[in-house]
């Protein structure tokens, strides 16, 4: 998955002129984004640029002050069922420390109405190499294992759109590589991904589009070049920041 040409498909997720204000402060201004199957959109920007706010709006966790988000052609949050098509993997795990890895994933399976939630949870944990620690409380697991349980939870319901926020933070190289492989596998299965990460090198193998967000606005938004390297993109990014 390295910038090869992709078939044109109708967008899974389309954000149009998204704006979000917190009081008098603009967190996002006029952000538009269109994500189709097999695409991974990398969003980079300095701290406070609005990256996490963007993901929250795309996930339906927050409402835009203006603009709209269309998911599979329908407005997001029109009904609870529309959220079934979205998976959010955040640097926050969305897990309960007092439950076991299995209980956490099984709970998510029940919320998503999967048939045989216990079986679905076991299978997903096994796929991620967590079968042996499935019945351990989450608080006893390493940061890398917790992140894998979070992946199991976020991707359990086979979402069409994955929103991923700093997935490599605090992970050792091996765990970070596993997360990259998982993202790649989900994309190859037909997903569209929006990835927010400071770790451009780690993410680069799956990226198809790049966006630079500064002060709540997209200052650059384009396809990744077929032979473009992460370092070349970072140089462009730094020059954009310098202004």
């Amino acid at each position, binding site marked *: 998955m390295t910038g090869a040409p992709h078939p044109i498909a109708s967008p899974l997720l389309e954000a149009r002129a998204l704006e979000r204000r917190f009081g008098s402060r603009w967190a996002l201004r006029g952000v538009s984004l269109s994500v189709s199957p097999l695409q991974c959109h990398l969003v980079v920007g300095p701290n406070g640029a609005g990256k996490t706010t963007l993901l929250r709006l795309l996930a339906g966790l927050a409402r835009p002050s203006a603009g709209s988000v269309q998911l599979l052609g329908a407005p997001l949050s029109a009904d609870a069922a529309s959220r079934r098509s979205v998976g*959010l993997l955040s640097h926050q795990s969305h897990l309960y420390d007092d439950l076991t890895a299995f209980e956490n994933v099984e709970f998510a399976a029940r919320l*998503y109405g999967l048939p045989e939630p216990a079986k679905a949870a076991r299978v997903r944990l096994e796929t991620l190499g967590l079968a042996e620690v499935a019945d351990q409380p989450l608080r006893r697991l390493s940061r890398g294992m917790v992140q894998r349980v979070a992946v199991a939870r976020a991707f359990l319901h086979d979402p069409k759109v994955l929103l991923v926020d700093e997935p490599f933070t605090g992970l050792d190289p091996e765990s970070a590589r596993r997360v990259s492989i998982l993202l790649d596998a989900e994309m190859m299965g037909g997903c569209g991904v929006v990835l927010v990460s400071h770790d451009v090198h780690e993410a680069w193998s799956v990226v198809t589009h790049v966006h630079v967000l500064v002060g709540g606005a997209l200052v650059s938004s384009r396809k990744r070049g077929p032979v473009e390297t992460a370092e070349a993109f970072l140089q462009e990014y730094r020059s954009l920041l310098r202004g």
Partner: protein
Amino acid sequence: MADLFRAALAIAIKDIRVEGRSRTALISAVTFAALVLVIFNFARDPGALPKSALAPSVLWITFTFAAVIALNRSFALEKENAALDGLLLAPVSRSAVFLGKYLANLAFVFVVLAVTLPLFVLFFDVGFEGGLPGILAAAVLATLGFVAVGTVFAAITVRTRFADLMLPLLLFPFLMPPVTWAVQITTRLLSGRPVGEILGWLRLLALYDVVFVTLSLLLFPLLMDE
């Protein structure tokens, strides 16, 4: 509708399981209730005030304050690891989230009641003399209403910096009617008055429940949107 109850039940079971592991809220609430009862028992001038005059108020103040400790925990546990976002992302209605939290909170508060009531009998040496069913009815009706209000306020205050302080400040004004009515019921039953005298208070408690459970169900989804 079946989906709503399925999701609500899953959330309630999860909350009870988490509390079963940590026991943070229950141990705090039960310890608090026992300490308050002990303090009221020994810090009273026996010559100035008979136990029977003080007992109904002590029971209800102890019970409701202890319940607030349990309510505080219900959304605090969703704050860890931003678990609340995980709940809100799921394809379940916000009403299901409210119902799940409400059911779990009811279970916790009834456990607090189950511990408080025997301690109250022990410390205050009261004889229910046939009044126990009436007191339990008052407890159940009062709990159904104030736990609904408490669940909504716990969801609001968890996003504030001083959640532990804010919840009692917001909730206590709404606790005054059911607690006052429950005290009236308990006073009459402990002094051997006929059950007919408390029916009016029980109806008021039931009305409070209908109004506030309905309002909570309607308002909660609006409060969850950023």
